[in-house]
């Protein structure tokens, strides 16, 4: 995981006339190492799709450089794209074509050497083996997503750009897809740029995460390190008998909380939890249920982008 297979420097995309200019991607720089899975996160309109479109060469950047395998993308486009592929939930495939016809066309387009073998292997891996004669429009949403993933793996890519690859999949299939992605990464050192709204998935699969907001990188690190930046844990308590005492106690101590009937939700630093519980005990406030949730990537994400409403 040392060699950079993708390097993006000062990438900028502006739309509109100079008078009413809108900056969709604002001077971002990042790299992707061999065998690394890099998560690209951000609320809607953060610039993720614009970035991916520029990385695929279907949108021209206003400024900045993109290099794959140490070569400038603009100059070596065909050579580079032989080793790159992508999947996105926002695109489709020829509507009336059968699964086999679609994969044949893309295998020809990418000049896959062992076309039939490769197609069959991937169809089995993605559990589409009995769908070869089905037309694309007849597939379920999950099958369509899986077919797009098969297409993206056809050319033994060294780099994969995956834009929400597991959206619209059943949880069971999504797990299998994640396992497949991890296996490809481990066996073939495939590097991936991965966008998803499923933070648990990002935490599971990504080695590193970049968070974009308004076209700018606002955070970049491993999911673990990002999560560590939030020290507050969430404590949920169910207090029925000593409900009134609990409210008085929390108000007196000025401890912020949210209340829903007998359920109290509090946020506090992990290291203060023991003291807090001891205080409750001292005040003879008994609780029926307790759960302590450690912060995860989603908490960090919501924290840095400024709240759930911005994400929605």
């Amino acid at each position, binding site marked *: 995981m040392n060699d950079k297979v993708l390097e993006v420097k000062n990438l900028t995309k502006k739309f509109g006339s100079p008078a009413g200019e809108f900056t969709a991607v604002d001077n971002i720089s990042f790299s992707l190492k061999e065998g690394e899975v890099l998560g690209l996160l951000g609320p809607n309109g953060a610039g993720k799709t614009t970035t991916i479109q520029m990385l695929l060469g279907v949108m021209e950047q206003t400024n900045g450089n993109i290099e794959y395998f140490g070569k400038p993308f603009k100059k070596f486009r065909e050579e580079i794209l032989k080793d790159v592929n992508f999947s996105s939930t926002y695109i489709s495939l*020829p509507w009336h074509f059968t699964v086999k016809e679609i994969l044949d066309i893309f295998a020809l387009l990418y000049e896959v050497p062992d076309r039939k073998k490769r197609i069959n292997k991937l169809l089995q891996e993605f559990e589409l083996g009995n769908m070869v004669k089905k037309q694309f429009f007849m597939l379920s949403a999950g099958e369509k997503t899986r077919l797009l993933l098969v297409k993206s793996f056809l050319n033994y890519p060294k780099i994969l750009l995956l834009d929400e690859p597991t959206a619209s999949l059943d949880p069971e299939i999504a797990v299998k897809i994640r396992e497949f992605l991890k296996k490809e990464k481990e066996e073939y050192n495939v590097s991936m740029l991965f966008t998803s709204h499923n933070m648990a998935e990002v935490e599971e699969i990504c080695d590193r995460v970049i968070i974009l907001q308004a076209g700018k990188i606002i955070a970049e690190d491993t999911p673990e390190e990002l999560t560590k930046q939030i020290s507050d844990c969430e404590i949920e308590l169910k207090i029925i008998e000593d409900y009134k005492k609990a409210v008085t106690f929390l108000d007196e101590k000025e401890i912020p909380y949210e209340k829903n009937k007998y359920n109290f939700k509090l946020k506090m630093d992990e290291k203060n939890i023991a003291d807090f519980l001891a205080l409750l005990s001292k005040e003879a406030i008994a609780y029926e249920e307790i759960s302590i949730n450690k912060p995860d990537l989603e908490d960090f994400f919501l924290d840095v982008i400024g709240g759930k409403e911005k994400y929605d």
Partner: protein
Amino acid sequence: MINFNRVFAMVYRYAIYLKHNWDRLSDMFYWPALDLFIWGLTGLYLATLNANHKEYIFIILNGLIFWIIIWRVQYEINVNILSEIWDKNLINILASPLTAWEWVTSLVFVGFIKMIISLTFSATLSLIFYHYNILIYGFYLFPIIVSLLLFGWASGFLVAGFIIRFGAKIQTLAWTGVALFAPFAALYYPLSILPDWAKKVALFVPPSYIFEGMRTMLFKGYFPIDKLVIGFALNIPYLLLSLWFFVFMFNKSKKLGLGRLI
């Protein structure tokens, strides 16, 4: 450099598209046949009104059959580009190693094959039902077809430039774009019939020279070479300009992002 494996992949893609879209066969056979019957019979009727002018029917058939060349090739270029937009498949192919020139080559090739099929079909029907044989042009048939092909491609890439820039919202141009040139191409009437302003426009429309030359051949038995030469002299720069325009609009569209077209 063009990679012909990738060109073949796209030709295969458009061939399969035809297999799954039988309505597209109507473009190849149904409409040409219908046109031939309606206008062929009209020509026959006109010929009965004036026994000295049996060539009425030949003039009409000639215009119908040879216009197929222009219409077919421009139509194929544009409808196949639109099919990528309709299928939301544009990004899949443009984010592959396929180059714009390889795509253009496949579109040109597919249009050419379908044009040959439609032309052969229409010419055979007209031979069987009206005894009009397009081979009467002999050696000239080849440059006539090439000249009309060049114009078809030029008008095709002109319209394709607008489609790749503005997307499916101007898709109707794929069907109607080339028709704009038809009145000035003087398919069924001599150029002398056109009003003065239209005659001036026709000077810049290469098929007008070809159709005028074909009528000369039908009436006088020879093909004026100068008309062929002028036709080519206009067609070649037009084709180069239209290709430049297509690439210019493609790059302009890329600045806005080709993903917005789907």
